[in-house]
């Protein structure tokens, strides 16, 4: 169970400020959904947590330890990430699931176990990833991430390319993972209904700023910020420029 804290974090790239002075504490063992319009800095925010990028200012702590003091490879093994596109590697499902553990020198990875977690039977192990549907690919991608036994999961719109049935499967799967494995999950979504369904907490990012962060129920029923109200009404893009 990881508590993740952002302390006055800013991030700029090529002179453009993408995240501005973010301070927030994500409680461990909960699902935190991040919502906001395109270009708000949501993906940048989660890439900072597993150090795919580093902040230009401020610090990020995991259980009160600055992530810069942790070996970056170890950090990434503790913090799994699932992308919008599954980005499965060429080969079989088994080879994909074994990839992370093999890097650590682990042999005899229990591929069937990880497939069962994501609701796929053991016959999938030998299948070529090219022959899987979009939903199956995303589930394999989640299984591949879980095979590293992460304590935190970062999900960058994992269901945005999926049909409603696959989306429901993935949502249930992530919810069960949180319950069973007590994972800290940060989930980026464009879909407010999804945030309501899945999030224990919800944060709104707009133009690189954290506008509001609250328990999901309170966020949607009693927003404190005018920008949040506009976002919930679906007017943010039009109203705030």
């Amino acid at each position, binding site marked *: 169970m990881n508590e993740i804290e952002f302390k006055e974090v800013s991030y700029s790239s090529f002179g453009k400020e993408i995240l501005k002075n973010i301070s927030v504490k994500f409680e461990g063992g909960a699902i935190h959904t991040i919502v906001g319009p395109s270009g708000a800095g949501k993906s940048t925010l989660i890439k900072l947590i597993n150090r*795919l990028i580093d902040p230009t200012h401020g610090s990020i702590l995991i259980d009160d330890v600055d992530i810069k003091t942790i070996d970056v490879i170890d950090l990434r093994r503790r913090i799994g990430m699932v992308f919008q596109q599954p980005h499965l590697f060429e080969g079989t499902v088994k080879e994909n699931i074994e990839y992370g553990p093999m890097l650590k020198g682990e042999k005899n990875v229990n591929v069937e176990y990880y497939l069962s977690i994501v609701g796929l039977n053991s016959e999938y192990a030998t299948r070529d990833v090219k022959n899987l549907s979009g939903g199956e690919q995303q589930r394999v991608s989640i299984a591949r991430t879980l095979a590293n036994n992460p304590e935190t999961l970062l999900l960058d719109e994992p269901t945005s390319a999926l049909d409603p049935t696959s989306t429901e499967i993935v949502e249930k799967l992530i919810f069960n993972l949180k319950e069973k494995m007590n994972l800290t999950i940060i989930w980026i979504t464009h879909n407010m209904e999804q945030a309501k369904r899945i999030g224990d907490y919800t944060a709104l990012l707009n133009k690189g700023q954290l506008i509001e962060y609250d328990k999901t129920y309170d966020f949607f029923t009693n927003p404190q910020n005018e920008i949040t109200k506009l976002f919930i009404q679906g007017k943010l893009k039009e109203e705030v420029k």
Partner: protein
Amino acid sequence: MSVLSLTLASSLVLISIFVSYYQKLGIEKEIVIGTIRAVVQLTIVGYILHYIFAANNVLFTLAMVTLMIVVAGNNASKRGKGIPNVFYFITFSIALSAAITISLLILFGNIHFRPQEVIPVSGMIIGNSMVASGLAVSRLKDEIKNKSEEIEAYLSLGATSRQAAQKVIKTAIKTGMIPTVDSMKTLGIVQLPGMMTGLILGGVDPIDAVKYQIMVTFMLASTVAISCFTVTFLTYRTFFTKQHQLRQAF
């Protein structure tokens, strides 16, 4: 060959100018400039080589080879525009492939360290190295740009930069080597290579010319492999930070 017959042969260039004009390709000017440059450059090189061959001096020979390497490195580095230090990476790769291949050829007794042998053979090595390393760097840059998310997927699973880039490294090396490997497959059937043609035109028995050409084929296979491997491994690192992060696009 007399100067007159060479001048008459230059009329062949008119055909390409006519095709460009007829098809409105708009490259007539480039053809004329290219032709003039080729004539001037080759004439100058002819005189320089004439002098160097006559002098038979080790330093002059090495200076000529060094100049060829630097010019080739400069030309090939245009394909990796924007990549820091790409000129040095490519030039070093070309130099290394030339040094290893020439040394082995001398060691095996295929050629002798004489300007008449070292300079033309170096020219072939450096020319092929230039094309191959330019292609490899260009492909590496494109692959990293197009597959940045996939590379980040590898990194997020705990892969090092080297492990995350393995696939694009392989693709880049292969891209640089493929033209040479392909041309090896059709040698003598589709094309009679320059060196062999030159020897035959110069009156050498085709069997002897073939021996030289086989040596050149082996030599080029080694050259492109060394230069593509070296330049790709030197260059891919510039796309990553020490913390195994993919840098933003160059």
